[in-house]
C-alpha cells in the first residue's frame, strides 16, 4: 500500500476520472452525505471498550511521581540507565507481514531503508515501511489520503487536529475496530499495551469502539510553558519566585532587552501564556451554558498585554516577523531569553544543542502565572495522549493481531531491551555506552533520534535524559511545583468529531489570523474584537449551537 502513484493506479485513476465525468449529471440526484455521527462516547459504552489496566513490573524511578489534583501526577524521573536491559517480549513479535506506516515528523526525514529501519524490521519480524511526513503540514497532507481512501496500514493522527481529520467519522469508515482485540481482558495478550494508563486509551475510543493506540501517554499533560534561559536570568539575579504575574514578566522586558547587542527579552509567548490571564483554552461552562474563549473578558486582557509586549520593543524582531522556525536558534544563542513552547522541548537533544551554543546553557520555565500574581494558579490539562495511532480497516484480523504484537513491542517500558532498541537503536551501530549511558553515534543521530516508531506506539512518558541529568532534575522539579495547578478543562479527553462546516467554524481562521497580527503588534485589540463579532454572528453561533446540542446536552462537559 504505497501512497506513490504507480503505473496501475495511475491508469485506474484515469479510468475513474473518465467515469466520473460521464456520471456527473446523475450526481445532483443523490447527495445528502453529512448525516454523520459525532463519534462521542456514552459512559457505559466507553467502559466496555476500554482495555483493562495491568501495571507492569517497570523499574523503580529515581525521582518518584508526585500526585496533584484532577488525577494528574508528575512523570517518573530516571537518572540512570539499566546496564543490562531486560526483555519484555520473547522473539520477534511479527510473522513477516509487509506494512506501511505514516507518522508526522518535525525535523529532517531519515533516509528510507536506513540501517535503523532495517534493524527494527529484523527485531519486529515484519517488513514495515516507515513514511514520515512533514509535521508542520500534516493536517493538510492526511485529508488527501483519506479523501482518496488510500490510508497506509498504520497512521498516527495528532489529537489536536481531530477536527481537521474528522477522526470520529474516519474511525467509523476507514479504521480497524480494535475493540475485539483489546477491550477488557483481551489486552492481556499484549502486556505492554495493558500497562498504558486507562485515561490515555480513552483518547482512541470513538462511538463506543476502541480504534486508537495512545502514544506518549502521560499523567502530566501539561499545556506547555513559558520557558527562559535559566543561566542568563540567574546572572541577572532573577529567579522564578520573583515572577508571579504577567506584569512581573513585562518588567523583565526592560531589564533583559539589549537591542544594541542583538538581545531581546521575548520570543512568542501567546499560546502558552494566555490561559494565565484566566481565559479558557477554548470553552468554559457558565451556568450550564457554553462560553467561547473569544467571548471572555480575560481573552481581551491577554490580547492587550501581548499587544503592548509586541509594541514595547522587548520582543525579538524576527519573532515579530513570524519566523518561528528559528526560535530554537535564537534561544540557544541567547538572542532571546524568554520563549513559549511545548513541554516536549525540555529534553536531552535540546540540552545538547543549547550547550553546543553556550556551555552554561540551562533551560528553565516560569511557574504557572496568575493575572494578579496572588490567586491560585490554574493550568488546563491537555489530552492524556495527543499522539494516537490507528490501523487501516482493510487489514485482516490476523494482520491486526500481528501489528498489535508489534505495538506491544514498541510500548515496552523505559529501560527494557525493546525500549533501548526503539529509542537508541543497536549498540555499537547507533549508540555506544559512554559511562553506562546510551549515547548516539552519528548514524544514530541521523536515523534514530528523529521520532518515528514511538509515534506508532510507545510506553507511558518518563523523564529521562541519559547524559543530561540536570534536565531530568530541572524538569521533574518544575512538574512537581506545578502539578497542583493542573485542572481539567470542559470536554477534557472527550472524543467527538464534527461535520466539515462546523470544523471550519471552529478553525475560525479569520479571527486566529487577526490574533496573530495583534500579538505581533500589527493589529489592535479592537480589530480582533471586530473579527470576533463577525465570526460570532455566523460561524461562531453555528459552532456553539452544534456543540451544545450534540455534545454538551447529550454527553455533558466531562468534568
Amino acid at each position, binding site marked *: 500500500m504505497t501512497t506513490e502513484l504507480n503505473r496501475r493506479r495511475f491508469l485506474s485513476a484515469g479510468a475513474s476520472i473518465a467515469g466520473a465525468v460521464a456520471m456527473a449529471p446523475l450526481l445532483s440526484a443523490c447527495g445528502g452525505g453529512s448525516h454523520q455521527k459525532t463519534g462521542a462516547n456514552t459512559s457505559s459504552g466507553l467502559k466496555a471498550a476500554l482495555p483493562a489496566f495491568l501495571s507492569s513490573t517497570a523499574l523503580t524511578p529515581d525521582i518518584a511521581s508526585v500526585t496533584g489534583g484532577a488525577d494528574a501526577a508528575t512523570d517518573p524521573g530516571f537518572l540512570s540507565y539499566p546496564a543490562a536491559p531486560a526483555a519484555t517480549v520473547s522473539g520477534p513479535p511479527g510473522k513477516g507481514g509487509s506494512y506501511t506506516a505514516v507518522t508526522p515528523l518535525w525535523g529532517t526525514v531519515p533516509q528510507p531503508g536506513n540501517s535503523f529501519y532495517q534493524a527494527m524490521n529484523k527485531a519486529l519480524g515484519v517488513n514495515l515501511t516507515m513514511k514520515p511526513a512533514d509535521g508542520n503540514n500534516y493536517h493538510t497532507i492526511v485529508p488527501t489520503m*483519506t479523501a482518496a481512501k488510500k490510508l497506509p496500514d498504520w497512521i498516527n493522527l495528532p489529537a489536536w487536529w481531530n477536527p481537521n481529520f*474528522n477522526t470520529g467519522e474516519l474511525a467509523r469508515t476507514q479504521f480497524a475496530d480494535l475493540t475485539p482485540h483489546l477491550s477488557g481482558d483481551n489486552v492481556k495478550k499484549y502486556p505492554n499495551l495493558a500497562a498504558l494508563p486507562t485515561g490515555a486509551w480513552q483518547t482512541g475510543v470513538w462511538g463506543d469502539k476502541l480504534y486508537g493506540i495512545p502514544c506518549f501517554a502521560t499523567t502530566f499533560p501539561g499545556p506547555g510553558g513559558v520557558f527562559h534561559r535559566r543561566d542568563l536570568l540567574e546572572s541577572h539575579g532573577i529567579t522564578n519566585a520573583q515572577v508571579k504575574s504577567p506584569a512581573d514578566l513585562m518588567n523583565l522586558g526592560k531589564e533583559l532587552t539589549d537591542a544594541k547587542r542583538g538581545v531581546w527579552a521575548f520570543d512568542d509567548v501567546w499560546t502558552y501564556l494566555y490561559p494565565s490571564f484566566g481565559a479558557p483554552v477554548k470553552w468554559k461552562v457558565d451556568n450550564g451554558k457554553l462560553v467561547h474563549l473569544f467571548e471572555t473578558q480575560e481573552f481581551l486582557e491577554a490580547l492587550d498585554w501581548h499587544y503592548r509586549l509586541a509594541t514595547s520593543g522587548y520582543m525579538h*524582531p524576527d519573532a*515579530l*516577523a513570524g519566523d518561528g522556525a528559528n526560535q530554537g536558534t535564537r534561544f540557544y544563542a541567547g538572542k532571546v531569553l524568554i520563549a513559549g513552547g511545548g513541554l516536549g522541548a525540555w529534553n536531552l537533544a535540546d540540552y545538547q544543542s543549547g550547550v553546543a551554543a553556550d556551555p552554561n546553557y540551562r533551560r528553565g520555565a516560569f511557574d504557572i502565572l496568575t493575572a494578579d500574581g496572588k490567586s491560585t494558579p490554574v493550568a488546563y490539562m491537555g489530552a492524556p495522549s495527543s499522539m494516537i495511532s490507528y490501523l487501516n480497516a482493510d487489514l485482516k484480523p490476523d494482520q491486526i493481531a500481528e501489528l498489535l504484537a508489534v505495538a506491544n513491542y514498541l510500548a515496552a517500558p523505559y529501560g527494557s531491551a525493546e525500549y533501548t532498541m526503539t529509542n537508541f537503536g543497536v549498540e555499537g551501530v547507533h549508540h555506544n555506552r559512554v559511562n553506562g549511558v546510551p549515547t548516539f553515534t552519528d548514524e544514530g543521530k541521523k536515523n534514530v533520534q528523529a521520532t518515528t516508531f514511538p509515534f506508532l506506539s510507545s510506553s507511558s512518558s518518563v523523564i529521562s535524559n541519559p547524559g543530561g541529568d540536570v534536565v531530568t532534575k530541572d524538569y521533574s522539579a518544575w512538574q512537581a511545583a506545578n502539578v497542583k495547578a493542573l485542572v481539567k478543562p470542559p470536554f477534557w479527553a472527550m472524543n467527538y468529531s464534527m461535520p466539515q462546516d462546523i*470544523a*471550519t467554524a471552529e478553525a475560525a481562521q479569520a479571527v486566529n489570523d487577526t490574533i496573530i497580527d495583534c500579538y505581533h503588534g500589527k493589529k489592535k485589540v479592537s480589530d480582533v474584537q471586530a473579527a470576533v463579532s463577525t465570526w460570532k454572528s455566523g460561524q461562531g453561533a453555528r459552532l456553539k449551537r452544534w456543540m451544545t446540542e450534540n455534545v454538551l446536552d447529550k454527553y455533558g462537559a466531562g468534568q
Partner: protein
Amino acid sequence: MSTARSERRASPTRLSRRIRLRRDKSLLLMTIPAVVLLLVFNYAPLFGLVTAFQSYDPLVGVWHSDWVGLDQFQALFGDPLFWESMKNTLYLSCVQLVLFFPIPIALALLLNSVLSERMRNFIQSVLYLPHFFSWVLALTIFQQMLGGAGLLNQFLRQHGIGTWDIMTDPHTFALLVTSQAIWKEAGWGIIVFLAALSAINTELYEAAAADGAGRWRRMWHITLPGLRGVVMLMLVLRLGNALSVGFEQFLIQRTAVGHDAADVLDTFSFYYGIAAGNYSYGAAAGLFKSLVSLLLLWGANRLAHAFGEDGLYRK
C-alpha cells in the same frame, strides 16, 4: 523574422487538412507526450471543480457530498477578506508589471552589449543563481539583511540612528515583494529575451553601421523591433497570469506583515479553504480566479492582435 513573414505570405493557398496532417505527422507525434501530460495533470483535475458547487467533505467523497449550488460563491462574494485578497492581488500585479517586467529586458540588452564572452558568462551565472534558491532561503537572506535584527538595522542601531523594519511593514510590502522577485527571478527572466536577441540577423547591424547608424540608432531601429514580438508574447502571458502573483513568497511572509496585507487569491484559497477544512470554499475561490484569468488572457491576446502582433498564436 521579417524574412519568415514574407515567406509565409508567398505561400499560395492553404493546404487541405489531410495533407497538412500527413506533412506534420512526425511533429504531431512528438507533441503527444506533452499533450498527455497536460490532459492528465491539467485537464483531468478540472473534475475537482464540481466541489465548488458542493459542501464537500473528503470523507464522504465527491459522489455523496451535498450539493449547494452557488452558495459557496454567494458566501465568497460577501466575504470582505476575499475582496481584500483580490485587491492585494491586482495591486501587486500592477506594481510587478510596472517595476518587474521591464527589468529582464533591460538586463538582456545590457548583457547583449557586453562584448567579453567570459565577462558575459560570469554575469549571466550570477544573475541566474538566485532563481535556484527556494523562497525559504531567499527570504531568510532578506530577513538576515533587512530584518529588524538584521545586518542593516543592527548597524543603524549601533550608530544611534533610527531603525526601519521593512520586512514587517505592511505599507511597503508591495515594493518589498517586488524587489524580492526582481532579485530572485529577473536574471532567469532574461533567457527568453537573450534568445530573441540572438535571433536578430547580425547582418542588419553591419549594414546599419555601414550606413553610419550609431549605437542608439541601431538599438532603436533593429534591436527593439526585433524584440517586439517576444515582449508582446510575454506581456500577454503576464496579463493572463495577472491573478497569480506567487504563493510561497506570500505564505512565508504572511505572519510578518499581517494577513490582510499579504493574502493574495492563492493564499486565500489555501488558508480559508484547505487549512480551515473548507475545501469547497477554496475551490470556489480558485474557480473564480481561473475564470477571471481566462478573460484577462483572452483580452490581452485580442489586444496583441489589434496591435498587429502574434500574441499567443497567429491570427
